[in-house]
C-alpha cells in the first residue's frame, strides 16, 4: 500500500547533539547547611548550637513524615485535604492501644524491647490510618474531585468529626504518653546535650525519606506517581488509571501521617484530639516551601522550618511564633512556586 517507504535516514545535520548538563538544582539543598552555619556565630556557643541544630533536625524529620504524603496527594490530583491532620491524631491515639497494655515493657530500660513496642505501635497506627485513608478517599474525596472549595469544606468537616470521635472513644482528657525508658535522657557530645529520642526521630525520618526516594525513583508505581504529578492526563493517555494510583497515594500518605502522629505524640509526651489539627499550619507551610508535589522539597522545607523555629526560639523568642511564616515568605520571594516546583496545578 505504501511502496514509498524508505529506510529512515538519521539526520546528523540536526542540532549538534551536545550532551546537555544534568540539571542538579542543588541551591535548595545547600540552604540547610548554610542556615545552620550562619547561625553558629549568632548563637555564640558551640554546645548550644549543636543542641538547637539536633532539636531542629529531629522536629523537621517528624514534620516531614507527617507532610510528605500530603504533598503527593495535592501534587497528583490537586486535592486540598485539610483533614490530613486527623490521621496524625488517629495514628497517635491508635498507638496507645499498644503502648498502654505493654506499659510494663516500656518501663524496662532495654532499647531492643522498647523499640519492639514502638515498632508494633507504629505498625498498628499505620495500618489503621492507611485503611481509614483509603475509606476517606472513596467516601469523602471522590465526590469532590476538581472542586477546591468543596474539598476544603468537606475535609475540614471530616477533621472535626474525627476529633470528636477521638474524644468519644478515648475521652476528652489529654492522655500522657511517657517516653519508653531507654529513650529518655540525653547523650553528652562534649558539652552539648543531645536527647536520645531526637536521634531516634532523625533515624526514623531518614529511613522514611530513603524508602520514599527508592519507591519514587526505582519502581514503576513510583515513576507513575512522579509522572502523574507532572501531567496526570498524559499518564491516563498512556493507559493507566490515575484514580487507582491516587487511592494508593492517599492511603500511603495517610499511613505516613499516622506514623508521624506516633512520633510527634511521643515527642510531646501527651496526646490531645486537636494535636493533628495543630500541626496542619506547619505541614502546609513546609509543602508550600518545598513546592507542591515535591517530596524532596518537602524534606528540605521541613528541616528549614524546624531549624528556623528552634534557632529563633533561642535568639529571639518573640519572633519564634512568626518565624515560620517569615521563612515561607522569604522562600517564595526567591522561588514563587517553592524550592522544587513540579506540580501542574
Amino acid at each position, binding site marked *: *500500500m*505504501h*511502496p*514509498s*517507504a*524508505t*529506510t*529512515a*535516514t*538519521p*539526520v546528523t*545535520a*540536526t*542540532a549538534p*547533539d551536545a*550532551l*546537555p*548538563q*544534568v*540539571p542538579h538544582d542543588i541551591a535548595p539543598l545547600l540552604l540547610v547547611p548554610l542556615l545552620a552555619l550562619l547561625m553558629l556565630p549568632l548563637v555564640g556557643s558551640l554546645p548550644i548550637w549543636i543542641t538547637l541544630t539536633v532539636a531542629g533536625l529531629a522536629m523537621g524529620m517528624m514534620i516531614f513524615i507527617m507532610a510528605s504524603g500530603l504533598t503527593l496527594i495535592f501534587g497528583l490530583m490537586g486535592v486540598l485535604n485539610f483533614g490530613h491532620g486527623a490521621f496524625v491524631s488517629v495514628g497517635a491515639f491508635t498507638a496507645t492501644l499498644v503502648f498502654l497494655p505493654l506499659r510494663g515493657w516500656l518501663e524496662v530500660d532495654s532499647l531492643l524491647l522498647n523499640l519492639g513496642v514502638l515498632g508494633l505501635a507504629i505498625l498498628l497506627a499505620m495500618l489503621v490510618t492507611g485503611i481509614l485513608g483509603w475509606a476517606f478517599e472513596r467516601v469523602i474525596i471522590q465526590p469532590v474531585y476538581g472542586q477546591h472549595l468543596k474539598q476544603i469544606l468537606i475535609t475540614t468537616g471530616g477533621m472535626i468529626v474525627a476529633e470528636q470521635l477521638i474524644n468519644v472513644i478515648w475521652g476528652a482528657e489529654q492522655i500522657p504518653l511517657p517516653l519508653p525508658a531507654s529513650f529518655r535522657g540525653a547523650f553528652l557530645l562534649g558539652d552539648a546535650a543531645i536527647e536520645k529520642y531526637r536521634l531516634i526521630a532523625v533515624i526514623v525520618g531518614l529511613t522514611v525519606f530513603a524508602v520514599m526516594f527508592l519507591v519514587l525513583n526505582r519502581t*514503576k508505581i513510583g*515513576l*507513575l506517581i*512522579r*509522572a502523574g504529578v*507532572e*501531567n496526570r*492526563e*498524559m*499518564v*491516563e*493517555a*498512556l*493507559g*493507566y*488509571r*490515575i484514580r487507582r494510583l491516587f487511592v494508593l497515594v492517599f492511603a500511603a500518605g495517610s499511613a505516613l501521617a499516622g506514623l508521624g502522629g506516633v512520633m510527634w505524640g511521643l515527642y510531646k509526651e501527651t496526646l490531645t484530639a486537636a494535636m493533628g489539627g495543630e500541626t496542619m499550619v506547619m505541614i502546609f507551610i513546609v509543602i508550600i516551601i518545598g513546592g507542591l508535589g515535591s517530596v524532596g522539597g518537602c524534606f528540605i522545607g521541613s528541616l528549614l522550618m524546624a531549624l528556623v523555629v528552634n534557632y529563633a526560639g533561642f535568639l529571639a523568642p518573640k519572633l519564634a511564633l512568626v518565624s515560620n511564616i517569615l521563612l515561607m515568605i522569604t522562600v517564595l520571594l526567591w522561588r514563587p512556586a517553592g524550592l522544587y516546583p*513540579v506540580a501542574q496545578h
Partner: protein
Amino acid sequence: MVQAQPPMSEPLLTLNAMHTHIGQFHILQGVDMVVPRGGVSALLGRNGAGKTTTLRTIMGLWPASQGSIRFDGKEIGKLTTPAIAQSGIAYVPESMAIFSALTVKENLYLAAREGEMDSVRLEWIFGFFPALKKFWNYPAGNLSGGQKQMVAIARAIVEPRKLLLIDEPTKGLAPAIVHNLIAAFRELKTTDTTILLVEQNFSFVSALADHVAVMDDGRIVHAGAMRDLAEDQKLQQRLLGLSLDSHQ
C-alpha cells in the same frame, strides 16, 4: 511490505455526528470523519478550527456530548481515557507532555504497558531517532524541542498500537528536524499502524498523507485523497487560505 488488510471493510475509526462542549462552549458541532485502515490521514484546518479538540475527544479527554466514535469495530465514545488507550490508540499531544523529571528511558518505559521494552523495537526507533539513544539516561526536560518531540512520538510507538493521534508535531521545530520527522513517519508507514496527523505545515503533510480531511468551525468541510488536494491550488486556497508561495 505487507499492509495487513482486515477482512472487514469497516474503517479503523469513524466519527459520527460528534459534538463536544467545553464548559458552556459548543466547540465541535457534528464532526463526521472516517480514518481508513493503514497509512496516514491528515486533519487540516486553520487555528481554532477544532482539530485538537477532535483528538482530545477521541482520546476521551473531553467527553463527546453527542454522536458516536467507533474504533476497530467497537464504540469507544463512553470509555475512559485509559480504556481508550488500552484499546490501541496512542496520543502525541500538541504540548508533547513529556515527563520532564523522568529520563528518556523512564518516559518510554512507562509507555510500554506490557512491562519490558522490546529491544529490537527500541533499536528500530533509535534508527530514526538516534538522539534518544544518546540521551537515554538524561532527564527528558533537558532535551531540545525537537528531541522532546522524538520522545513524545517514541512513547507512542514503543509498543505497536493500531492508531496514532499526532497533534502538530512540527510546530516550532527547525527544518532539519522536520526532515528527520518525515523520515520517521515514512518508516512508520511501513508498519500496520494507522496515523491521524493534525498539521499546519502543508508541505510536511502533503509529503506524507494519503487521505485528508479539512475542518472549520467545529465541522469537517472537506474530505478526500491528499493527492487531489495537493494538486488543486484553488481548493487549497479556499479551504486553507494557502497558496503555493505561502508555504515553503
